[in-house]
C-alpha cells in the first residue's frame, strides 16, 4: 500500500443495465507507467473520467497518496494532484500555446484570483511556461493560437498543460494519437523522464509505444480488468490476444 500512489478499488458505473466499468481494481506505483489497453468501448476513458471526478461512480473507492478522494469533485481532485489529457484534444482555442500553459500554471502558483496584476508582467509564470514549451518541443510555436496548431501539436500542448500542474499522477488518454514518428519518440522520451516525479496511467492504442514505456499493463474489456502484468506477460497472455491484440507479438 505504501508503494502505491493511486489505489482504485471496486469502481463501478452503470447506465441502466449497461455496466461501463465493473468492479475495477487498479493501482499505480511510484515511478511507474501503468498502461491500460483494451478495445474501443471497453470503458477506458470512462474509467479516466471516474478517476478525475467528471463522471460519478456508483460504488468503489479512490485513494491518492494515502488520501481518500472518493467524495471530492473534479476541481478538488485536480487541485490535489490529478492531471489529465483528454481523448479528443481539449485546449483553449483562442489562447496562444503559451497562454494555454500559463493558464495551467495559475492554480499551483495561487494566481487565479489576482485581479489587477497584469498577466503579461508576470515573468515567473512566463519563464515556467516557456520551459514547458521547450520540453514538449513547441517553443517555436509559443505565440500561435492553439486552434491553429496541427493535431499533433495540440496533443503535445495537452501534455504540456498536464506537466504545468506538477501533479502527483498523470492520466494520459491516448496522448500519441495522431502524432508522427518524431512526435511519438519525443513523447516516449518525455514520459520516461517525468514518470520519476509523477507516475503515469496511460491509455494508448499504439502498442509499440505501450510496450516501450509501460512497467505494467492492464487490459480492460467490457468494463472489467481481464489481465494485469508486465509487458511480456501481457504479450503472451492468450486471453488478451483473443480480446484485444488479436495477434501474437
Amino acid at each position, binding site marked *: 500500500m505504501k508503494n502505491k500512489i493511486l489505489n482504485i478499488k471496486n469502481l463501478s458505473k452503470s447506465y441502466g443495465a449497461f455496466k461501463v466499468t465493473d468492479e475495477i481494481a487498479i493501482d499505480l506505483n511510484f515511478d511507474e507507467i501503468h498502461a491500460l489497453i483494451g478495445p474501443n468501448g471497453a470503458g477506458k476513458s470512462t474509467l479516466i473520467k471516474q478517476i478525475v471526478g467528471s463522471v460519478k461512480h456508483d460504488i468503489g473507492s479512490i485513494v491518492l497518496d494515502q488520501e481518500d478522494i472518493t467524495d471530492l469533485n473534479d476541481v478538488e481532485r485536480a487541485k490535489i494532484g490529478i492531471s489529465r489529457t483528454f481523448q479528443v484534444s481539449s485546449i*483553449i*482555442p483562442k489562447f496562444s500555446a503559451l497562454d494555454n500553459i500559463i493558464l495551467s500554471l495559475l492554480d499551483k502558483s495561487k494566481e*487565479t484570483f489576482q485581479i489587477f496584476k497584469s498577466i503579461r508582467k508576470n515573468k515567473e509564470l512566463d519563464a515556467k511556461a516557456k520551459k514547458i514549451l521547450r520540453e514538449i518541443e513547441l517553443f517555436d510555436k509559443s505565440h500561435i493560437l492553439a486552434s491553429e496548431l496541427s493535431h499533433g501539436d495540440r496533443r503535445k500542448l495537452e501534455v504540456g498543460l498536464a506537466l504545468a500542474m506538477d501533479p502527483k499522477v498523470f492520466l494520459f488518454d491516448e496522448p500519441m494519437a495522431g502524432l508522427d514518428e518524431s512526435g511519438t519518440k519525443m513523447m516516449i522520451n518525455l514520459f520516461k523522464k517525468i514518470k520519476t516525479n509523477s507516475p503515469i496511467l496511460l491509455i494508448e492504442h499504439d502498442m509499440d509505444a505501450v510496450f516501450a514505456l509501460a512497467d505494467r499493463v492492464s487490459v480492460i474489456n467490457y468494463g472489467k480488468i481481464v489481465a494485469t502484468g508486465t509487458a511480456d506477460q501481457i504479450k503472451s497472455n492468450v486471453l488478451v490476444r483473443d480480446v484485444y491484440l488479436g495477434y501474437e507479438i
Partner: protein
Amino acid sequence: MIIEKFFNKWIMFFLILIPSCGVIFDEPYFITLATKVVILGIAGIGLNLALGYCGLISLGHAAFFGIGGYITGILSFHALNDEVLFSWPLAVSGSSEMLIIWPIAILVSALFSFIIGLLSLRTSGVYFIMITLAFAQMLYFFSISWPNYGGEDGLSIYMRNSFPMVNTMDPLSFYVISLFWLLFSIFISLRLINSPFGMSFQAIKQNEERVKSVGIETFKVKLLVFVISGTITGLAGSLYTDLNRFVSPTVLDWHTSGEIMVFVILGGMARLYGPLVGAAFFIALEQTLGSYTENWQFWLGLILILVILYARSGILGLFDKKLRHEK
C-alpha cells in the same frame, strides 16, 4: 489589435467632441444625449464582462440597473422629504449626496449580484438565461406593487443629487461626472481582462471543462465576474436615475436587460469599447429613425439580424475587418 486601439482613440475623441459641440452651439440636448450614451455604455461594459468575456448570457442585468436606480431614487426621495429611511435598529435618513449614494448603490448592487449569481450559476445555458430573467422580473413586479415609492408610476426626485463644488444640474458638469465613471469602468475592465483572473474567465467561455481540469474553481470565478458585472451595471443605474431625475419599474423590466444586451451585441462582444459604440448606435437610431416613425425598433431589429448574421464581432469588428482588407 493595433487597429482597434486606433478606433478606441477616435471614440474618446468623439466623447469630447459631441458635448463640446453642444456647448458651442448652445444645444444642451446634445450633452444630455451624450450623457445617456455614456451611462448606457457603462451598463453595457458591465454586462460585457459577464456576457462577452465569460460567456454568461444574463437576461437579468435590468435587476442590477434597476437596483442602482432605485437606491438612488429612494435615498434622494427621503432626503428631499426629510423623512427617515428606517428607524430600527438605527434611525437612518436619506441622502442627496452622490458621494454617499454611489457607494450604497454599488454595495447593494454587488450584494444582489452575489445572491442572484450564487443561485443562477448552478445552472447553465438556457436555464441560466431563464433564471436570471426570472430574478429581474421578480424585482420588476415587486417595484410595481410598492406604493411607497410610486408603484407603477415611478418616483420623481425633482433635483439631481449633489456633488461637492459642482452644479450637477448643469448638463456639462453631469456629463463630466458620468464620463469619469465610464473611464473608470473601462479602466477596471481593461485591468481585469489582462489579469490572471481575466485569463481564467476568458478561458471558461471557451472551454470550461478544460479550465476545471487544471484546478481552477470555475464556479467561484464566474461568481466573481457576475458580481463585478452586476455592480458596474448597478452604478450605471444610479447615474441614469440622476440623469432623468426619475426612476420607474421600466428600468427593471426585461426590455432593459434586452437593450443592454443589444448594446453589447451591436458594438461587439468581448471588445472593450463595444458596448459604448453599441449604445451610441442605439441612441442615434432612436433619435434619427424615431423622428420619422414610432416603429423605429423594427429597423433596429433588422440591423440586429444583419449584425448577428454577417458581423458577429459587432460594429467594431466589422470596421476592423474592413481596414484589414484595405491594408
